[in-house]
């Protein structure tokens, strides 16, 4: 890589600052040497020597190698000692430029410039130490180049969004009430309490018991104080029969879990409202602390409808909005409908982003899902059984009755069948749908226009059975729980992906 004209180095203070930061570590290594008077801690001396011999030249080479260049169309940063890297960040991709000054930097009149693009929370480009004036120059020139870009090509995408969004909300809400007055979704008190009933979580029990353990009360004294001997009969029964003790403990625990769930939800979702205001969504909720938030509509990347078997049995769902932004607060999954019927969930989603296909003339319905290949049952069963066998084997090695864990293998089959039943995918002109999960049921509604990267993958075992998986990556997607459609027949996976990509291209061209 030849040096470019216009390339700059960091401020020479970088070196001093890095040395300064390295000194405490050196001191820590040398501490035993300083403390022992006869210098027996030779090992630390050697370590310190190695540290000095490696770290200081390393810092110097790192400083020498680091160059940056701010051009009208991009920022180029070259860095690295062993691995040399040149990074190019197009100026129109930059979302934010931060200029920070710590204490050390304030003393030396320098600053740190962080350049953020969309995508990750970490800064994509960091100029560690530059003079404060230079920091401002960098920031201002990036802004200048950005506004020049917007000026010369009328930002069609932004204009498009500005046009699309009011249209979208009027389409979806053809009532005469002004937008701001009609919330998209509201939680009544009754609904909040009802949602708390479904928020049955053992977590709070665990918290309760750990608290009890922490304060270590004398149980008998406490019970006496609480009920004053009125339930002595019950207490005696409990001490005589372990079954009664077990039952009563369970009942108390369940009641506690229920009540705490209601209390937590009441605190969290009391007075939840979601409103559309121009190109933004506002939500506010909370009893003790009132929380408000804003979601810009164009940052909405996907919808996630969540439920569990219990909630689903009674027809309750939760809608989350997958968002994306350079700001940590703007990314991740935001709750749009904490607790609602499928009708409410879909209606709200449709008013957030119109074009969801299912407010069809016959009313709102769930999207039609296609099943994945039945072979997925076989794969899941083998996988669960192997996992179970490994656990059973490991347990058996230490404790021979552990082998009885293998009697759970029929459950693995049940699990595999349930997994198959709850897995599904669907597609249409603008959306891809994926559904997964037995206990935690997720349905993703992915707008094809929000696609970032498309994947098709097939492991060795999948290929043997002629299967493949499909995944469309969007910004802000969860890494732990991806919207991946697993075990589609290979040719269908290929077709669906090709079709989705073709649609993606069309959407943007039109």
């Amino acid at each position, binding site marked *: 890589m030849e040096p470019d004209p216009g390339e700059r180095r960091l401020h020479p203070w970088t070196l001093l600052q890095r040395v300064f930061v390295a000194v405490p570590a050196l001191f820590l290594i040398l501490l035993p040497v300083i403390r022992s008077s006869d210098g027996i801690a030779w090992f630390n001396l050697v370590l310190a020597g190695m540290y000095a011999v490696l770290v200081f030249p390393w810092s110097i080479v790192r400083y020498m190698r680091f160059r940056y260049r701010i051009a009208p169309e*991009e920022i180029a940063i070259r860095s690295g000692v062993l691995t040399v890297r040149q990074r190019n960040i197009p100026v129109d991709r930059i979302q934010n430029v931060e200029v920070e000054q710590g204490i050390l930097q304030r003393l030396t009149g320098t600053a740190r410039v962080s350049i953020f693009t969309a*995508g990750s929370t970490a800064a994509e480009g960091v100029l560690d130490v530059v003079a404060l004036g230079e920091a401002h120059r960098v920031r201002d020139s990036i802004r200048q180049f950005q506004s020049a870009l917007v000026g010369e090509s009328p930002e069609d995408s932004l204009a498009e969004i500005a046009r699309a969004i009011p249209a979208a909300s009027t389409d979806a809400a053809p009532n005469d009430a002004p937008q701001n007055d009609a919330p998209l979704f509201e939680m009544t008190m009754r609904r909040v309490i009802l949602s708390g009933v479904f928020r049955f979580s053992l977590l709070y029990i665990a918290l309760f018991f750990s608290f009890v353990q922490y304060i270590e009360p004398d149980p008998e004294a406490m019970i006496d104080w609480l009920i004053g001997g009125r339930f002595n009969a019950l207490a005696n029964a409990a001490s005589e029969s372990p079954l009664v003790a077990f039952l009563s403990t369970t009942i108390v625990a369940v009641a506690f879990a229920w009540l705490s769930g209601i209390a937590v939800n009441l605190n969290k979702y009391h007075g939840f409202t979601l409103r559309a205001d121009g190109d933004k969504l506002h939500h506010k909720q909370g009893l003790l602390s009132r929380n408000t938030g804003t979601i810009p509509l164009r940052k909405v990347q996907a919808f996630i409808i969540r439920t569990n078997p219990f909630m689903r049995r009674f027809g309750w769902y939760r809608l989350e909005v997958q968002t994306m932004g350079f700001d940590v607060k703007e990314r991740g999954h935001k709750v749009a409908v904490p607790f609602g019927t499928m009708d409410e969930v879909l209606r709200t989603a449709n008013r957030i982003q119109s074009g969801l296909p299912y407010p069809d003339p016959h009313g709102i319905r769930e999207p039609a899902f296609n099943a994945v290949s039945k072979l997925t049952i076989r794969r899941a069963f083998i996988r669960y059984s192997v996992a179970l066998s490994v656990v059973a084997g490991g347990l058996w090695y230490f404790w021979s009755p552990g082998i009885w864990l293998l009697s759970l293998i029929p459950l693995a089959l049940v699990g595999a069948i349930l997994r198959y039943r709850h897995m599904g995918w669907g597609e249409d002109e603008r959306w891809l749908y994926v559904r997964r999960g037995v206990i935690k049921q997720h349905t993703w509604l992915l707008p094809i226009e929000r696609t970032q990267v498309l994947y098709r993958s097939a492991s060795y075992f999948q290929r043997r059975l002629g299967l493949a998986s499909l995944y469309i990556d969007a910004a802000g997607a969860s890494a732990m729980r991806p919207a991946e459609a697993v075990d589609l027949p290979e040719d269908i996976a290929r077709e669906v*992906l090709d079709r989705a990509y073709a649609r993606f291209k069309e959407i943007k061209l039109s």
Partner: protein
Amino acid sequence: MPKLDLRHLDPAVQKVWRIRILIAGAVATVAAAAYDVLNLFDTGRFLPLGLATVSALVVFGLASWLLPRFRYRFWRFSLTDEELFLERGIFNRVTTIVPLRRVQHMDVSQDVIEREFSLGNLVVYTAGTRGSQVILPGLQFDEAEQLRERIKLYITDEPV
């Protein structure tokens, strides 16, 4: 689909991969040998004498011989005006389509081993999660730079 002109990586990348595996293997073998030497006279050894060292040698030897060849065989890519298309994987075969207008920024990088063979990587970043970083290894260094310049021309979309 850009099925037509899929390209292989530069064959020299196999050597880079092999050297990396051999370095890891050397570390593992030294560790295993240290275990064997330290437990030389221990009668209650967990593993029979020499087994750790020999198996480390065999495993890494085989891996360094086979993995680079297969990895190279299954790695293909193509760059068109609209997308970067990758196909790779020995066990888990993955096809990736990166629409170029989704590219946020790019790296061209080269580590010490790659420098010996004048190879480089092109790393393409998007705003996605799994696809936040898509790596195309084993390019001639100047070719990686050329590809970067080509991709730059097509980054036209609005930011997320």
